[in-house]
């Protein structure tokens, strides 16, 4: 099975306090720790596990700048066979639809059976996978938490729905799936793994290579534009307990007692 996994380099929100810059045009990016989008890591692990079962190849792809290459390499260290970087000044400022258009242009040049994305990325949109499927006219399922290959024409897919219930579907290939966290346990990537792919060749494709018309991408191709970043006026918020640890503990225990928090 030929599997393509779309990955994005994002600031790690578990590691960083995200700060808006002074004029609200961007977040402070200087000291941020970046990593591969959490959901995408599960998608790559799933692709590798499928390949280990039924054979084929796993290709990892990202739309981004030169820095984005590091996440492609990291996912190759996990076990992906190939990496592709889609990079062009013309791609900057693309909205979700623009990103999907760029990915589509690369996908139609290959011969993939299965395209995986993460369920969502750092801007919490959850849009690229569904848009891509619609552009390709391939079937789509979101929030996938189980994949079983039936044969080379169809797969069994479980997707998460409200309350943690699981909806089971059969889907014809080729298709696009967005992967939910928890579907597997992504393998650990050590220094040795990274070293092994340090010199692997990662081709870079731009707008010309993809024969992408400029009006589809970048600000010109975007119907949705981010105007600013801001931190909302804090509401009333929590009553913060302050003082030294002993004082805080005393206050907290009093509160717990009065609210029925200690049995």
């Amino acid at each position: 099975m030929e599997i393509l996994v779309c990955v994005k380099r994002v600031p790690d929100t578990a590691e960083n306090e995200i700060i808006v810059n002074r004029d609200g045009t961007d977040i402070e990016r200087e000291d941020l720790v970046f990593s591969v989008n959490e959901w995408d890591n599960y998608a790559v692990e799933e692709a590798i596990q499928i390949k280990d079962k039924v054979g084929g190849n796993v290709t990892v792809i990202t739309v981004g700048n030169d820095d984005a290459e590091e996440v492609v390499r990291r996912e190759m260290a996990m076990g992906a066979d190939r990496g592709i970087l889609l990079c062009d000044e013309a791609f900057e400022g693309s909205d979700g639809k623009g990103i999907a258009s760029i990915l589509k242009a690369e996908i139609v040049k290959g011969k993939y059976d299965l395209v995986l994305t993460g369920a969502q990325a750092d801007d919490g949109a959850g849009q690229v996978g569904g848009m891509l499927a619609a552009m390709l006219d391939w079937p789509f399922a979101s929030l996938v938490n189980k994949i079983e290959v039936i044969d080379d024409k169809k797969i069994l897919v479980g997707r998460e729905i409200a309350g943690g219930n699981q909806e089971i579907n059969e889907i014809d290939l080729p298709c696009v799936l967005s992967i939910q966290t928890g579907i597997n346990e992504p393998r650990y990537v050590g220094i040795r793994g990274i070293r092994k792919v340090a010199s692997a060749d990662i081709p870079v494709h731009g707008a010309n290579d993809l024969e992408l018309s400029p009006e589809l991408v970048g600000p010109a191709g975007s119907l949705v534009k981010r105007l600013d970043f801001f931190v909302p006026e804090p509401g009333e918020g929590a009553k913060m307990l302050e003082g030294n640890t002993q004082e805080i503990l005393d206050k907290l225990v009093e509160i717990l007692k009065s609210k029925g928090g200690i049995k």
Partner: protein
Amino acid sequence: MPGKIFVYVIHREGTADDTALELLAAAKKIDPEASVTALVAGSDKELENVVKQIAPSFNEVWKIDHESLSYIIAETLRPMLARIIPKGSILLIPHEHFSMDLSPGLSIKLEAAFIPDVVAFEDIKENKLTAIREEFSGQVSTHVMCDISQGVVISVRSGAFKPEATAAGKGQIVDKTSEALSGGIPNGKRRYLEVIEAETGEVDITKSDILVSVGRGIEDQDNMDIIYELAETMGGDISCSRPIVDARWLDKSRQVGTSGKTVKPKVYLALGISGSFQHLGGIKGSPFIIAINKNPKAPIFQIADVGIIADILEFVPELTGKIEEIKG
């Protein structure tokens, strides 16, 4: 002025979801004068019940009634909606599991724009709609401006808009079934088989009065012991956010949130949980929430009653010790 405004109505077992009226309020934020149309799909009796419930609140109800929609999967419904929704329309849909399946692709098929997970609308000028969204796990917000001249699909966060007592609508029911099916029943490249219900697990956290809830801030499985000890001392049960289940440190039946359990304890202690809307969506009945987090900017502090900025790895054992002390 914007095109026709539609609200997509989610329903379960013949009952419309609360989001129907929330999205009606959202539609009025875009255009207070708008005549809002509810869009509801399903089959037979269940659909009839839903239509009856919502009709008094909307000016029009468009229904698609077909057996292929007795369990709705997005792949079946999307082409039908693409056939009936007029060009240039605004479609509001609750941002949850079904929308994530349906909406992005629908926007492409309608050649419309898409704005995901909107929490507020700012204004509308000519064909430019400005909305507010959150990014980076709710740590910062953004204004986005969207060109809606070709229409737009907008998924709206549930709870973001308060239902208003709006003037009752005319409730005119329009059957759109034959138009929706005009190209035939959409191809079956994705076929629904069954729903597997989530398990309850050995402890039913939906019944607990005291929940000691742990999030990614616990950092390592080895640290989980301090949570067990605290819960035992307090006489509470352990629950958690999703990453703890994903890491297999606790059973899925312990997860609080939109894709986990809905809990209604008296006291909810959130330890190292950032407070994503999917997590908070599982906490009902206004419990007393105490949040302990090392990041003063964590969104959980916006909704908690009491907050403590601390490292849970140090603070939790001290709290356990203190409670043991007073219990004697």
